[in-house]
């Protein structure tokens, strides 16, 4: 099942790339790299979340930082 999900995620990422890449001006190398990098990031995060759904996320990080203040409102 998980492999099917990875396949789905890959297809989705590929679809985005396939749709957007041809539209970028040939001279804009940076744009292309950004698009590929962002897509790669999404792919990696999606796969990570698939295997470790309980991985501590940004909310936990923020919560840790602001906990002393947040306690004031508990």
């Amino acid at each position, binding site marked *: 099942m998980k492999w099917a999900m990875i396949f789905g995620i890959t297809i989705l990422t590929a679809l985005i790339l*396939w749709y957007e*890449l*041809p539209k970028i001006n*040939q001279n804009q190398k940076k744009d292309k790299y950004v698009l590929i990098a962002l897509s790669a990031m999404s792919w990696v995060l999606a796969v990570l979340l698939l295997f470790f759904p309980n991985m501590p996320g940004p909310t936990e990080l923020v919560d840790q930082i602001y906990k002393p203040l947040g306690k004031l409102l508990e």
Partner: protein
Amino acid sequence: MNSFHIPKISKTLLVILLSILLSLVIGCWDRREINDIAIVLSTGIDYINEDEIELSVEIVMPEEMAGHIGEGGRGGDRSTFVESATGVTMADARSKLQQKLSRFLFWGHAENTVIGEKLAEKGIREHLDFFSRMPETRLRNWVFVSEGKAKDLISSLPHLENSAAATFIELSEFQIGMNVTMKDLMQMLKSDTGGAALPIFESLPPKKEKGKLEGRFQPYLSGTAVFKDDKMIGKLNDEVSRGLLWIRDEIHYATVTVDVEEEGATGKVSLELIRSHTELIPKIKNNKWSMILKIYAEDDVIQNASHLDLRNPDFIKMIETKMEEAIEERIKLVVEQVQKQMKVDIFNFNESFQRHYTKEWQTAKKNWDEIFPEIEIEYIIEAAVLRPGTSTTPSAVPERELKDE
């Protein structure tokens, strides 16, 4: 990146194909057609033993309902049936109930919740949670206690409506007795000082009586159940309940009959309430708590069974005074039972004091149970008879017997 280049038409085709594929995949998880659901109208909860409750539901029979509309409301057989199951909690009983039915139970249209008398005595809080937590249910859901088993009450088949649920709804909309929705009940139970009150419904046992169809019995409002915390501790009968409505400013229909003096004998005049307003005025003087009940009621005469000629304003004055006494008497009945015997504040005195004496309330709320029975009640009742109805003199009384002075 020319390899990515695909002719425009095939691209459009691809998008269409993808959308079709997607639409096949998504949107089926929560699909539930009208003919897959069993619509619950009334819910009854009964006490079985320490661990178990019985959940009964009144469910609409779809064909019956449809048939009736087609035939212009024949008002014949019942259009609902009752099914029940036992379980340790409401949710547990529900799942057992679901196994007995071919359709998915749907609570979105549930209108009534009936609590069996025995269960009410054991405590109701834990069962109410089900209604506030389940996404389908609404908080506007009439709640009442049944005399006897809730299951029997929702199984009763009335004369006028074709389901018990419809009767409950009509009676509640009528506003003859207390009207309590799930929201109101939760508010009453949430307060840490007041008690709760729920209307009691009763269903007459089928007696062979002329003018009534066999096997039909009419649920009717028979009084008020008084709760302390979430347990029922007493009942008020119909007459006493009326007084409660006066105090809570919830009275909408009332017919008061007063005795009038007339040369030795007494006659009777009946008045119908048009509108009334009750105001609670709390007072704390020298650490003595008292409450002024200020009631203003407007009435019309609907029957004059005496020989008084109501064209005389003095008689109207007299009737007004009698009326005031009658109302006070009714209220005193409930005060005696609720304030002195049950000692539960279902008069909303707590809120009234909280609003007017915020500071004193902070300390008083801890021992409100002791303060409440000691509160002295003062009555300021003003009744106004606005119209003598549509006839002036008592009808069909010979002129010489009329009393006009």
